[in-house]
Structure formats: C-alpha cells, structure tokens
C-alpha cells in the first residue's frame, strides 16, 4: 500500500518525516476539530455536552486498552475495574488527604498503574485465553474489594466527589468540565502517539507481531508485556478519575464486567492498533444508544411501535444494538472504523482513478 502523501509534498528532513500529522489537510482537520469542540458550549445543550464529555472519558480509557490489546496483543477483560479504581482513588485522595482535585487525577492514574502492574504480573508469562482468565480474576477481585472496602469506596452507598477546581475556576458544569476532559484527551493521545514512534512503542508492537525475533532484537518480553499492562491501567485510572469528578458521585456497581466488555467493544469497533480508532470506537459506543433512542422516538405512535412496544423495551434495544454492532464489525470490518476511514481517504485521494 502506497503512502498517501500529496504529489509535490517532499520531506526534506527526518524530523519532518516523523510528524504525527503528516499532511496539511490532517493538521487543518486537527485544529478545526479542536476549535469545534472548544466552541461546542456556545451551540450545544447540557445533554449533548455530556455526551461529548463521555466520549472523551471513554476515549481515554479505550486508548489505554488499545495499547494493551491492539498494540501489544495481550488481552484484558478487567479494564472497567481499573477504571473504577481510578475513580475511587481520586475521590479518596481528595477527601482523605485534601489534595486538590487537579492533582488527584494524575495521582489516581499512577496509583491505578501500580495496581495494574500487580495484576499484570501474570501477563509477563501468560497469553491469550489464559491471560483473559487471569484478568477476569482481577475484575472480580477488584469488584469485591470495592464492595467491602467501605473506607475507600463508601460501600454500597457510594462516594460523593468534589468538582474539578484550578486557581478558583470550578468545573462543576458540563460547559466547563468539557475543557478539562479536552485537555486530558490532548495530553493522553499525544502521549500515545509519541510512545508509538519511539523505542518502547515499537517494542510493544514487535512483541505482538513476532515475539521470538523481538527477543533476538534484545527486547525483554516480560518487561514489555507488564509495562503495557501498567500503561493501560494508567489510562484507565485517569479516565476513571475524570469520570468521578464529572458525575460527582461514584458507586460500586458501575464498574462491572459488562462495562469491561464495552471497552473491548470500543477497541474492536474503533480499530485494534489505531490511536485515533480508540476515540472513534468510544464515540460510536456512546452515540449508538442515542441513535437507537432517536429511532425509537421517531417511530413512536406508529404501527411498528404498537406491535413491538419500542418505548417499553428501549433498554433491551440499546443492549442489543451494542451486541449487534460488535458482531457486524467483526464480520464486515474487523479492522474497525479507523481502517474504514483510511479507505475513504484513499478513495477521495485517488478519485476517479481508484486503481
């Protein structure tokens, strides 16, 4: 496959050849997208802003899982538990030690990374199905811990959290919290993109693609498999902490295995091994139920609605739509939205000479 740089766009330095956004079009799209999100509070209501914030938070967690599953080729079905640990850690650090929320978020990320390293230790030796079961154990152990450690999580009653505040600016509404999430999104996505163009990022992919020759290149397999788990947990912890300070309330039952599987769904739908795909997958998973809802509303009162009782079964319909989406993507677009997006770009670039 040829690389799709426009004719006449010659790279004259290695530095220019290593940029994350290679063409002027992609840089323009980046700035335009950021400007649109930054201007969103002017145009959108609180509900729609809430959706954007959710996409951002899920996007960060999904990126972490993608580094583990997509880039390193390991598996985790306990991602939601780490997400939850980040949420409780941030809330607890603020309440118990009065650390400002702005600092609690990165601290929660680091704490979750450490917990991830403990549970990720089996990842150094296990692969595939065996690792899946080991991470399943992490999911249940952490869930059980959340339910029992009342001092940490508030038990079944849950824990109230404080809003994000920085130098007197309090982000307690969607309009303001959007910018907090936006800043973290930029940081975390740049971090991942940078990681993948340096030594350790390449080592992760090498471990996935051919671990025998990776070892021959001097790559320590156990180290990188564990490291990948730590990084994935760090991303989950940051996302969880943002989630806690957005909802201002965290409760134990949110971080169950279904949530973990949703993260896997995001990564598969977005595209395994694609940084931007993680965000696309998160957007897809957050918006899909909304689309189903909108469809049900549009049909309300009609013959289909009366026959199928759409209004009463909307919650089942949402779940089914998610399941159907994952199955359809696995069959028709196993490389995810990111791959589809590349094909669309190539189509326009080469139009009308597509071959």
């Amino acid at each position, binding site marked *: 496959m040829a690389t799709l740089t426009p004719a006449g766009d010659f790279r004259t330095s290695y*530095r220019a050849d290593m940029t994350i956004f290679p063409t002027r079009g992609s840089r323009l799209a980046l700035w335009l997208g950021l400007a649109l999100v930054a201007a969103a509070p002017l145009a959108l209501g609180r509900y729609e802003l809430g959706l954007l914030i959710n996409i951002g938070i899920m996007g960060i967690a999904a990126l972490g899982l993608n580094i583990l599953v997509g880039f390193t080729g390991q598996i985790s079905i306990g991602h939601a538990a780490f997400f939850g640990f980040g949420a409780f850690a941030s809330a607890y650090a603020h309440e118990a030690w009065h650390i400002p929320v702005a600092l609690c978020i990165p601290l929660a990320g680091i704490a979750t990374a450490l917990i991830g390293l403990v549970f990720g230790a089996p990842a150094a030796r296990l692969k595939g199905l065996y690792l899946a079961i080991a991470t399943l154990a992490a999911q249940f152990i952490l869930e059980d811990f959340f339910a029992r450690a009342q001092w940490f999580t508030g038990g079944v009653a849950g824990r109230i959290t404080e809003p994000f505040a920085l130098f007197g600016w309090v982000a307690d509404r969607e309009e303001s919290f959007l910018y907090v999430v936006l800043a973290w999104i930029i940081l975390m996505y740049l971090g991942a993109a940078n990681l993948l163009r340096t030594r350790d990022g390449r080592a992760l992919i090498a471990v996935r*693609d051919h671990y025998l020759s990776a070892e021959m290149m001097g790559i*320590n397999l156990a180290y990188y498999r564990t490291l990948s788990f730590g990084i994935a947990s760090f991303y989950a912890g940051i996302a969880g902490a943002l989630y806690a300070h957005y909802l201002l309330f965290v409760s134990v039952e949110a971080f169950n295995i279904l949530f973990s599987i949703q993260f896997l769904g995001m990564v598969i739908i977005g595209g395994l091994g694609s940084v931007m795909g993680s965000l696309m997958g998160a957007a897809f998973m957050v918006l899909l139920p909304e689309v189903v809802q909108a469809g049900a509303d549009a049909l309300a009162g009609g013959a289909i609605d009366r026959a199928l009782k759409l209004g009463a079964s909307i919650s089942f319909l949402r779940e089914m739509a998610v399941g159907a989406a994952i199955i359809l993507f696995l069959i028709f677009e196993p490389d995810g939205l990111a791959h589809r997006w590349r094909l669309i770009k190539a189509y326009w670039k080469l139009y009308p000479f597509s071959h």
Partner: protein
Amino acid sequence: MPTIHAMAETAPILEARNVSLRFGGVRALTEVSFAIRQGEVFSIIGPNGAGKTSMVNCISGRYRPTEGGIWFDGSEITRVPVRRRAALGIGRTFQNLALFGHMSVLDNIMVGRHHLLRRGFLPGMVWWLGGAQREEIAHRREVEEIIDFLEIQHVRKAPAGTLSYGLRKRVELARAVALRPKLILLDEPMAGMNLEEKEDMARFILDLNEEWGMTVLMIEHDMGVVMDISHRVMVLDFGRKIAEGAPDAVLADPHVKRAYLGEADEVVRDVDEPVTA
C-alpha cells in the same frame, strides 16, 4: 576469491566446545566443536535435519545446549538469555521470515536499534522534551545508511507484511545489520530466491563481511554460493560434525560425499544406538 591467509592467526570470535543438544530421545547435536575466526565467512552445510538450525539456535540462545558450551568474544554465553545477546553483538535472521508484519520497513529496522536506544517510554511519550526526538533522528540517519546499502529505499514506508519474499529477506537482513553485530547469523538467506536475487544477496553478504567488518555464520543449501563466498565450511550430518575446512577440501571429503549421496558411513553409524542419559 576471498583469502584467509591474513586472518589465519586471529583469535576465534565464536567457539563451540563439545555442544550436544537432546530433545528427549532425539539427538539433534552430538559433541560438535568448531571455532569461527574474526572476519570470516563460515558456512554450515548438511542434509535436511542435520542439526544446522539447531546449532544456530544454540548460538542465538533459543536453545540451551544439553552439554558443552559456547564462547563468544572471550566469554562464555551458554546460559546468557536471548535478549542480552543483541547487546553482546550477535544478530540473526530466521529461516522462516520473522519480520514484524504490520510495522513499516523503517520501523522494523529501527527495532534493530532497540539495544542502542536509551529513551524509554517516559521520555518517549514527551517526544519534544527529554531528547527522544533527537535520538530518533540520530538513529534514523544510521538506519537510512543500511537502507541505502541494501537498496530498499522504495519500500521503506510499506508494511513489511506486504512485501515480496525476496524483499522481506532483505529487510530481515537490514534489521539484523541495524543491531551492529560483530557476528551475524544467517539462516538460509537465499532460500526460495531466483538467480538474480541470490547474486544480490551474495554481494550484500560479502560487503557486510569486507566493508562493514562483520563475521558471518551462514546456513545455506545452494552449494554454488557456499563454495563461492565462504572462507571455511563445516558439514553436519545427523547432528555430528563430519568435516570442516576450506570449501574445496570439504567438497572432496569422502564423508561429505557419502552424507549427500546417502551411503552408510562409520562416522554416523552409531546414531541408531539408544541414548543413555
């Protein structure tokens, strides 16, 4: 025609002493000893299943010899883990292609620089601070030299998995060269190639040896190439060394003739005896 007179006295860079390798009752290698001198092109030949790849796997660390030991550059490496051997100066290519299929050719070769790069994931994630960018550019320069040398400029951005067989073999060589090894192990570098590709590969191997100063250990079935570019040849049969020496001498050896023509030979006769261990 390469000459070996100049290096006849140089110290061995690699020495295998009485290496035996057993898998249960299967004797893959039996008391194989040999030494490769600094600056040599050394070939291992032998019929299929003779233990050639097993020998290379012992040197690269994939297998640990059941008995005997291997010395590299003055120190014993028999028990050194595989991942540390790159830094010692051992690089290898694989018989069945072992590239990172989804990475670009460039990234594949950059993985070869792994043990020479110092910036880990933290400086890596903050590309602009901490010197990761500077380091990447410096190493990119060296990698581009290797790309020029092996004439793969036109595919440097292509995913390695999409390349033709001959090109993949060349990329694999490039990746091994990027390690800057003192000793490079080539497991059938010319298998499945056409004549022109073989000639190219032979030229690359000679250049690596003469201009880049690498010692080469090669397994190859193409006798023409082996006889043309090797300084010395070792012949394995049923896991035993049956001959070693200059290409012409080895070819004339009666044991070698018998090994290839399939006659009974007293040197390998006792392989049918049960293993006592």
